[in-house]
């Protein structure tokens, strides 16, 4: 399996995800299947899958307290300890986890090793992975939240605020503005750009290309497909927004209706989203939940202050002092080392 094969496999699958709803809607009129049954199924798979996944992790105990310490420990009172990178308290751990989850703290440390003639190596500034990763995740979150406007009437205030914040950069500048384009949403541009960066990085950096599997290309291409269909609907092939909203509200109120006249592009978009949802719990995308449970990050480094109990601890076979003295008693006595039995 090399990267070309991986890419081909992935591209074929992603294209199938376009063709299936295309045929299903245009040739077989399966609007109810693609508009109602599959979305319900996908959400169900997502929820059950995630619960199963997190339960599996939670059931597996944490026998040892092994945080990776990334700053000065708390020891003597006159030595300043690093409360976030090496926390000893619950508050510190919460702080560390917030930094990890909201700001990708560990990834921010990233450097790039440069091998030079000499021979010597140096470690260079490399924050691009961190930057595009964080931009990608936040853009994705904003897009996701903005979609809530399809699920609620009236549109929740925070979604409206988000939209106005996100869209402050109206496309075009004077005198070319006002060409009739809707407000170009920042995240609509940023999201595909970040995904593209992550994809190019995977293909262009030799070591990252070497470790990449189809399972790494697939989510990126799938999200790119979702973004592309979304952008097409919004900006190019004006979509019947009222019909879509009717369908969505029908789904969330469990009174599904399938309005006529929603373009096939919408069903392609929706099918890809359903695929992402159903795929999520069974893929590496579960890092979303896994990070919360990662024992090297979510435990306090208070090991010598507070005892940690291993739930499956069992007594082991040991070599006691008595065994030891029995073997070496004479030598010990001769060397003047005290013994229990003379």
């Amino acid at each position, binding site marked *: 399996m090399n990267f070309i094969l991986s890419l081909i496999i992935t591209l074929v699958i992603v294209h199938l995800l376009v063709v299936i709803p295309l045929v299903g809607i245009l040739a077989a009129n399966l609007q109810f299947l693609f508009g109602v049954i599959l979305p319900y199924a996908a959400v169900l798979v997502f929820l059950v899958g995630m619960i199963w996944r997190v339960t599996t992790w939670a059931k597996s105990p944490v026998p040892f307290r092994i945080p990776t310490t990334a700053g000065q420990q708390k020891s003597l009172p006159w030595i300043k300890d690093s409360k976030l990178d090496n926390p000893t308290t619950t508050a510190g751990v919460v702080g560390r986890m917030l930094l990890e989850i909201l700001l990708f703290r560990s990834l921010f440390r990233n450097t790039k090793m440069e091998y030079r003639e000499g021979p010597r190596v140096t470690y260079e500034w490399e924050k691009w992975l961190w930057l595009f990763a964080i931009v990608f995740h936040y853009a994705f979150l904003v897009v996701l939240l903005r979609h809530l406007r399809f699920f609620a009437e009236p549109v929740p205030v925070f979604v409206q605020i988000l939209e106005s914040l996100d869209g402050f950069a109206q496309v075009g500048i004077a005198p070319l503005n006002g060409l009739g384009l809707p407000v170009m949403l920042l995240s609509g541009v940023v999201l595909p750009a970040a995904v593209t960066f992550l994809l190019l990085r995977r293909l262009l950096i030799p070591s990252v290309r070497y*470790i*990449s599997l189809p399972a790494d290309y697939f989510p990126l291409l799938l999200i790119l497909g979702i973004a592309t269909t979304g952008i097409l609907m919004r900006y190019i092939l004006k979509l019947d927004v009222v019909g879509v909203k009717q369908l969505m509200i029908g789904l969330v109120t469990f009174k599904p209706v399938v309005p006529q006249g929603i373009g096939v592009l919408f069903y392609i978009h929706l099918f890809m989203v359903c695929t992402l949802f159903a795929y999520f719990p069974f893929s590496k995308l579960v890092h979303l939940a896994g990070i919360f449970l990662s024992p090297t990050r979510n435990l306090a480094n208070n090991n010598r202050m507070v*005892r940690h109990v291993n739930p499956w601890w069992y007594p082991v076979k040991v070599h006691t002092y008595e065994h030891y003295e029995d073997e070496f008693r004479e030598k010990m006595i001769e060397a003047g080392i005290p013994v229990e039995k003379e």
Partner: protein
Amino acid sequence: MAFKNIPKPNELAQIGHKPPLMKGWLDTPVDIRTGVFCYAGQPKNLEAVGLPNPRKWAPTDDDWQLPDNWKEIFLEGMRERLDKYRTFQIFMDICVRCGACADKCHFFIGSGDPKNMPVLRAELLRSIYRREFTFAGKLLGKMAGARELTPEVLKEIWYYMFQCTECRRCSLFCPYGIDTAEITIIGRELLNLLGLNIDWIAGPVANCYRKGNHLGIEPHAFKDMIDFFLDEIEGVSGIRPEPTFNRKGAEILFVTPSGDVFADPGTYTAMGYLMLFHQLGLDYTWSTYASEGGNFGFFTSNEMAQRLNYKIYAEAKRLGVKWILGGECGHMWRLIHQYMDTWSGPADFLEEPVSPITGTKFENAKATKMVHLVEFTADLIRNGKLKLDPSRNDNLRVTFHDSCNTARGMGFFEEPRYVLKNVCNNFFEMPENTIREQTFCCGSGSGLNAGEDMELRMRGGFPRANAVRYVHDKFGVNMLANICAIDRAALSTSMEYWVPEVGVTGLHEMVANALIMDGEGERTTDLRGEPLPGFEEKEEGEEDV
């Protein structure tokens, strides 16, 4: 010469870091190379502690003489550990292969072997996990990065699990905290179920279990070795400390790695301990039964580690001491800090440690009741309890190597620097991406400090040596201080190979050289018998100019 079978440094350092373009790793079979692997565990050493499948074998054999149901044992072992370790289960599931860890590993930097990228080291096991424990892997095979566990694959896992020093540098950079040390620890446990250990680990484990220390030093010999240090100390300072062994009723039990009493330059560190304790009049005892702080059981299995670790608390209890003081060591301290209380505690028969000299309560050790000697010494210096003459170390231009285990398993950064700056006048840090939590491994940790894998060790030691070379060229650094017995052995070799101008010392060797002891004679040499600054000419008998 230890390096006769490996290329010269300039040749070895010609490293390519580009993996093959068209051939994926799943299709690249393992090539077990001489100079990289360690010899197989000898049957007698496995038998000594009851490890499975003792037999004579060699990694270059075609047939590794595995039990018939080896695959079942391995997979059942995996299933059991997935249920027992949340780390293992999560780390099998959540890696996104972002590659942030790839160029953080000293073995990848030094070898360019793509399977030494931490992510791929873990993928070796993950590929089996996917095939056997996930639906997608069963269904899609290689497309999902899954593969069958074959004898070839098992050899590959063995080869690379013993090319990781469990230093956790990659874990620091991983956005999810995936810890390759956990993967390697569990990988080695699984291999040990099949009798696939290396002798550099199995030998010390067998020794330690029965004789109390990795080197197999028997009680009378242990005392002899310390006596030899006393002669040396007397020669240098005119003072002969009077340590005790296995003494009941001492206030403190002192435990340090046996490497400190065995080989230079660790021996000078051991002399440093003896001199410091003598000067303080500390009521302490050594133990010949718990004469090992290190724990090669940890490189075998969790259970083996617990079996060896047991002795420290057991001996403290038998002797009736109040608390335990631990010498300079890396993995020993990771275990004491992160594992000992869980394995062998609670230490409710001991008291919360209080320094008898300064009265300082070591609140940070109130549960384990074990204090790091450098914490203890830093407290002494802070409270003005030591008379120090740092100019005695003026011939040294010193840099400090943070040991992986104390760095990323404790966060032990300021204490040793504080001590160091008080005992010498010329201290220079290595570049920031190579110290503290980002420190590089010596290249020989976790039981890989053998002779036959010298190429691997020198490759793994390259990033650390590269940083030492930098401060040597820039500041004239000629001494590499550290607080780890394995560092003292491994870095000595690595420096000899990469930066021969730089020596290696334990921190307490420097403390003892600077320490002004009550009633000492005029010191003209350091503990190594080399002239102190200002005494060079007399020593060499040169004429004044």
